[in-house]
């Protein structure tokens, strides 16, 4: 019984927080500002709690599995959610449905935890749905805005579509192999045409969730319409968790078909990087810009996944950790500016350095980290992704990936240039930062600067991967 609690600890903690918020909501005793503080405190406790009493083991008849690497992945997601609660304090503080918002977010997170721990297609499918449907409700949370409902609609339709494809794939898989357990499937796969078809269907479902080109079309619209906190959650937490289970799926379940998925990954990652980069260059809205940049980043993640090695796993986990800090910092600054001044266009950022030097530096650091320039952590993250991909000794592909980094640098510099160099008669006025925002941004900036230079973190992740 004791073991049950320690294995299932991350999920139980999240459930406990959900219940606490539910009671607070029903009793209506707290003001929203105090409530936000409570939520932040609980999430911090949850994050810290993730490091103690961790045990490996199976539960529910081998449907659920946990080890130290998965605990680490869950801690990264916990950290991201804690940072979201800090960084978006400005816009969430006055929302009357604040507890519901976090209940939804934590339900999605709970789904993700079960998803990355799943050992069985059934468990996987259920938890994937749990991780998706609350996010659609979160996308609809700007209740007065039409764009927000539109985003939610697009999100739910495309998720339903991808779930359908996934279910079809799973049912074929069951038909072909007679099992849905992750441990048994690899031995039943024989590489026949039907198996390839199964892989294509399941891969497609993942491609929807990760917004891999050509299944990315929902991304930019949803990011643009949804509240900023939801977009940030989608781009960091949701992408990260799906990337984790994607690795398990490919490396473990479809291990016998590694040749096939390797080729699929190479082709789609090239398409993803190119399309993401080309579209990001032309964006005028900061949210759409970040949407396309996150599509391009997924392309880089796929490079490492294609290696099929332990280095591939560790570098993806490491990159997601860095991505949490860099992308959340970028979204955080954009959200503070959008809440205060209502401006979301990149043109409006001209001359920002004059009035808001702190925000400008944080955003610049985040963008340099996303572009992969030292001394920021993004440099190490990107470099390790590419190095892992180079294990297959396909240097033409690696050269292509490296050249894509230059294209991405170009559009990240557009914003840096707007903030630091372009003149503007009426720049965005001095923005008053809520203390929570400030703390969140400082944590992000600190993470961006330090995580790369402290090599212990990568080595720790590597030792967990084994």
């Amino acid at each position, binding site marked *: 019984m004791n073991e049950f609690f320690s294995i299932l600890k991350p999920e139980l903690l999240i459930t406990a927080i959900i219940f606490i918020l539910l009671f607070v909501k029903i009793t209506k005793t707290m003001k929203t500002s105090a409530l936000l503080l409570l939520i932040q405190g609980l999430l911090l406790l949850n994050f810290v709690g993730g490091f103690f009493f961790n045990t490996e083991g199976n539960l529910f008849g081998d449907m659920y599995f946990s080890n130290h690497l998965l605990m680490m992945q869950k801690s990264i997601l916990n950290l991201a959610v804690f940072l979201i609660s800090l960084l978006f304090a400005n816009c969430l503080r006055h929302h009357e449905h604040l507890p519901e918002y976090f209940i939804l977010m934590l339900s999605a997170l709970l789904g993700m935890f079960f998803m990355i721990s799943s050992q069985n297609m059934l468990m996987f499918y259920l938890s994937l749905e749990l991780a998706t449907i609350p996010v659609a409700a979160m996308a609809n949370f700007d209740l007065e805005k039409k764009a927000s409902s539109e985003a939610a609609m697009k999100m739910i339709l495309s998720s339903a579509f991808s779930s359908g494809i996934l279910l079809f794939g799973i049912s074929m898989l069951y038909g072909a192999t007679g099992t849905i357990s992750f441990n048994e499937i690899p031995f039943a796969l024989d590489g026949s045409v039907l198996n390839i078809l199964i892989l294509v269907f399941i891969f497609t479902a993942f491609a929807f969730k990760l917004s891999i080109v050509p299944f990315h079309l929902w991304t930019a619209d949803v990011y643009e319409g949804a509240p900023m906190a939801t977009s940030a959650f989608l781009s960091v937490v949701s992408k990260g968790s799906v990337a984790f289970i994607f690795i398990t799926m490919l490396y473990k379940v479809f291990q016998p078909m590694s040749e096939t998925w390797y080729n699929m990954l190479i082709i789609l990652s090239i398409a993803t990087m190119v399309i993401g980069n080309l579209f990001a260059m032309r964006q005028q809205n900061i949210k759409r810009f970040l949407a396309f940049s996150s599509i391009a980043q997924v392309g880089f993640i796929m490079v490492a996944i294609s290696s099929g090695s332990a280095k591939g796993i560790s570098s993806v986990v490491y990159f997601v950790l860095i991505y949490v800090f860099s992308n959340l910092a970028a979204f955080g600054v954009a959200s503070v500016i959008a809440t205060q001044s209502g401006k979301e266009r990149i043109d409006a950022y001209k001359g920002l350095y004059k009035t808001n030097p702190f925000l400008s530096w944080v955003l610049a650091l985040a963008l340099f980290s996303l572009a992969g320039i*030292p001394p920021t952590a993004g440099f190490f993250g990107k470099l390790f992704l590419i190095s892992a991909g180079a294990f297959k000794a396909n*240097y033409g592909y690696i050269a292509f990936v490296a050249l894509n980094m230059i294209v991405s*640098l170009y559009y990240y*510099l557009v914003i840096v240039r707007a903030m630091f160099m372009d003149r503007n008669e009426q720049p965005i006025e001095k923005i008053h930062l809520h203390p929570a925002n400030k703390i969140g941004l400082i944590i992000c900036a600190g993470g961006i600067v330090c995580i790369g230079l402290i090599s212990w973190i*990568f080595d720790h992740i590597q030792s967990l991967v084994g």
Partner: protein
Amino acid sequence: MNLTYLILLPLFTAALVLLARNASQVKVISLLGSVAQLILSVGLYVAYRKEMVAGNTAQMFFEADYKWFPAWNIGFHIGVDGISVAMILLTAFVVVAGVLVSWNVSKMTKEFYFLLILLSLGAYGFFISLDLFVLFFFLEIAVIPKYLLIGVWGSGKKEYSANKLALMLMGGSALVLVGLLGLYFSYAGHSFDLMKLSSIHIPIQIQKICFPLLFVGFGVFTAIFPFHTWVPDGHSSAPTAGSMFLAGISMKLGGYGCLRVATFLMPDAAKEYATIIIILSSIAIIYGAFATMMQKDLKYINAYSSVSHCGFVLLGIGMLTQTALTGAVMQMVSHGLMTALFFAVIGMIYERTHTRMVQEMGGLLKVMPFIATTLFIVGLCSLGLPGLSGFVAEMTIFVGSWSHPDNFHRIATIIACMSIVVTAVYILRAIGQTAMGPLKEEYSTLTDAKWNEKAAVIVLLAGILAIGIAPGWLNDLVRPATEIITQKIGAVK
């Protein structure tokens, strides 16, 4: 001597700059920091010298290997040989002069000096690293400072130049990255360590792919033809100290990388591709020189002549003889000092006349004798007058390349020699029009150099004269290191 001080000192200075209260504190801290760094670098030279005299025959001195990402077999491996010491000395001189010249920067002083110090940190780290990952890290660390220095404090079409420079240099480093990964996987058990990689024979097929990637990638930094186009725009748009750092230090990173990484690790491929390198560098030398003749802006004149002068560096590397390689390193040091001084003087003139157009000036010798005289000296150094550093370096390269008995190498040498005549034409014309002739009325009230400008000039001139008058010390410093490289090349069948 512990080499980490060379990185820690700029880091410490940069941190202090961030904490400083006002602009004058920032300047004083930066100056003290850079002077301390200069003393440290001279101390490094003295310590190195002492070891050499004591008969230490190790390839790398003061080696240290700290753990950094052991999962990837990456170590923070540092050490210096003669070439690195020469480049570190060059960097230290240019940084002190750059800090002094920027004394009048009033726009965002703190950020400006912070970025300058960060840029110098990248250079120091680059020159001492013996692990290719660390080397690449320090190579790229300078991208942000360069971009911001040009884009924020520059003049003219600065945004365009900053973008062009950042993207082209990033493109160069992307090629370097792929080449480095090729080397990394060619070592059994995977390693980025320069010494480990140099101890094995890298398979010839890998050399054939990686050498061009690395040479062109580093070559972009040192303006290899046809990837030199960022140089004129970047240099002319940058603020004075920015141009000095770019031409004096940053371009040398490329030459050092071509020599230390590409040629040293892959001698077979270096021999194979030497012809192409020589052709490209000869084109750069001649093309740069003729392009300079057409320029009317002083900064463009120096920028294009940098393309020509850096061509000599690559020519020396392409010749692959010991004398030519030594000459290439000497040319890097000499050109670094000379071009930094040239940009410093141009900056001083521009600050006073508010123009850099040659035909709008005239007779400046009468109102600012110190600045105009420096312009003369640096111009003569650029065209290779004996007694100044340019002559020593170029002469060494020519002697080294002439020692090849075949026609191809000799014709390339003759072409390179002829460019000196073209250099003389444009330099003398530019200086003559600027400093001599009738003085324009609006310039009659201009003042001569102030203390900080004089100090900057003296620091750099001291370096130029030290090489020009007594080149032996630099030769002794560099020769043992180039000998190891030529031995490796000689061992190739």
